[in-house]
């Protein structure tokens, strides 16, 4: 077995040319502004950050290893638990990857509902980001407003999936069931009022001099650094890289939707704030288009050996009962091969790399999650800034520790 090499950071020598007054301090893992169990080891000169070292792994649960011991369809609930703020994006990315391996395509209505729900999920994730980010900086009120709307979204998730956070609503080949009859009306009612709510948040924050001063010019990241350090999603677009997987490499029918991709070239925390606010408005547009053009038809693919039959059929038809029994007890075999599927989730580019060896259990599932890569850019953004800015910058890159550690 190979040995670990290197020295623990607290025993590491100070940076080259460091003066005596440099101090190493520890921030986290139990710290309210780190949004989870992130530990930062900081080398500071007075109040100025010289070096910053993120220590992760406190939430590591070995989900990738667990996936290898489950049937393909049993992996879906595990994916929720990785990024618990944007659960449906995880479900979608995994299902798309396995569907690509199988050569199976979800029916049109399932695709549209997936887009609608993933955009709601993005709103959910952005609302939590906005509330907690503003709260870290001292604007406590916004949190109460954003969680009011988040509650509405969670009620919609509960209506459609029976679960508020760990939805597991998507299945390989479609959705787990038809949404309730009044679901689309409820989404419409939510969407009708939501743009005003975004104005409310903007009224509270955009003109707020303390909020502006804490964010403007703080945590600068250039476009070249963003690409070199693997930053994706809103932080990348706030640095001026014009790329969005939904628009540029569409999946699940995104090519049928019209929306703008907000870009900023400022590259600071303020730009990330503005980009995400516009993204919320664009999500509303996409949801509206999905509601207007929602096609009719089934929500499950016609693949009886892969997709579980309806409850009703399972209890009345012999073939459906046999298929149900076989899928639940033996799973379904997936042709050998490897695929990588990337999607644009709320935090950035999520990707699933699924390797199959032809059996009913995945040989290897690897998840690429945006926060893991984005965290590498934290040092670049914090260097030369004040200690208090670290809190603002962590908030602005919107990390979820569940997806860093997996």
């Amino acid at each position, binding site marked *: 077995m190979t040995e670990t090499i290197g020295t623990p950071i607290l025993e590491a020598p100070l940076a080259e040319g460091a003066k005596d007054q440099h101090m190493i301090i520890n921030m986290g893992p139990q710290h309210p502004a780190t949004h989870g169990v992130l530990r930062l080891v900081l080398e500071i000169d007075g109040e100025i950050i010289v070096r910053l070292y993120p220590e992760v792994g406190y939430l590591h649960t070995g989900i990738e290893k667990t996936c290898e011991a489950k049937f393909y369809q049993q992996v879906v609930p595990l994916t929720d638990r990785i990024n618990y703020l944007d659960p449906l994006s995880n479900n979608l990315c995994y299902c798309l990857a396995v569907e690509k391996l199988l050569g199976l395509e979800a029916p049109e209505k399932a695709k549209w509902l997936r887009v609608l729900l993933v955009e709601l999920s993005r709103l959910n994730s952005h609302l939590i980001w906005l509330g907690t980010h503003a709260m870290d900086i001292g604007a406590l009120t916004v949190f109460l407003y954003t969680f009011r709307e988040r509650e509405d979204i969670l009620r919609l998730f509960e209506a459609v999936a029976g679960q508020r956070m760990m939805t597991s609503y998507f299945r390989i080949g479609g959705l787990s069931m038809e949404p309730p009859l009044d679901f689309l009306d409820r989404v419409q009612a939510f969407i009708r009022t939501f743009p005003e709510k975004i104005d409310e948040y903007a009224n509270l924050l955009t003109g707020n001099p303390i909020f502006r001063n804490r964010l403007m010019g703080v945590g600068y990241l250039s476009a070249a650094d963003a690409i070199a350090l693997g930053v994706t999603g809103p932080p990348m677009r706030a640095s001026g890289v014009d790329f969005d997987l939904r628009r540029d490499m569409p999946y699940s029918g995104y090519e049928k939707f019209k929306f703008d991709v907000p870009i900023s070239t400022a590259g600071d925390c303020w730009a990330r704030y503005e980009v995400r606010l516009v993204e919320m408005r664009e999500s509303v547009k996409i949801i509206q288009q999905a509601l207007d053009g929602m096609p009719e038809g089934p929500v499950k693919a016609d693949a009886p050996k892969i997709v579980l039959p309806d409850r009703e059929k399972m209890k009345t038809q012999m073939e459906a009962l046999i298929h149900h029994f076989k899928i639940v007890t033996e799973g379904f075999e997936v042709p050998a091969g*490897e695929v990588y599927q990337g999607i644009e989730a709320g935090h950035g580019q999520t*990707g699933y790399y699924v390797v199959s060896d032809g059996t009913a259990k995945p040989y290897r599932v690897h998840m690429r999650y945006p926060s893991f890569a984005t965290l590498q850019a934290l040092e670049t953004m914090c260097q030369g800034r004040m200690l208090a800015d670290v809190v603002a910058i962590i908030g602005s890159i919107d990390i979820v520790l569940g997806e860093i550690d997996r």
Partner: protein
Amino acid sequence: MVESHTIVGKAAVIEALPEHPAVKAIVAWNAEALTDAKFDRNELTLTFAPEQIRAAAATVQAAGYKFLEDMTAVDWFPSSPRFQLSYHILSHTFKEHIRLRVMVEGADPSVESITPVWPSANYYEREVFDLFGIRFEGHPNMRRIMMPDDWVGHPLRKDYPVEGYR
């Protein structure tokens, strides 16, 4: 579903996709370094010898594949060579992913680090080192990232049990 054609083998891929920017750049650089290639499910996989991966990565980066999206390993225990490293690289201009692949022997596995080409490989390589025990030469900080520093074993190896006590 659109049936995408599958092309297997180095010669077949070079012949079928001569205008593909990545294939073109690799052939122009050093066609010998490419040991295998495959085009399957609309994804291009290029396999290289382990000692060539850094140069290959620099070549595709110069060809327009600027963004390292993901990097991980697969353990094919007990077959030989045991480990497969997969690098997923995205091009913002061509709007496409490609996969670079390296096969590594199981005994004392070690590969050149690609951190000089993409600094973002830092965490990915540490993760592979931690969970698979593959060492990356030239990595600035080759330490465990997920597991505690004093952990024994590499959990994502196939001979490591899924459950039970140590």
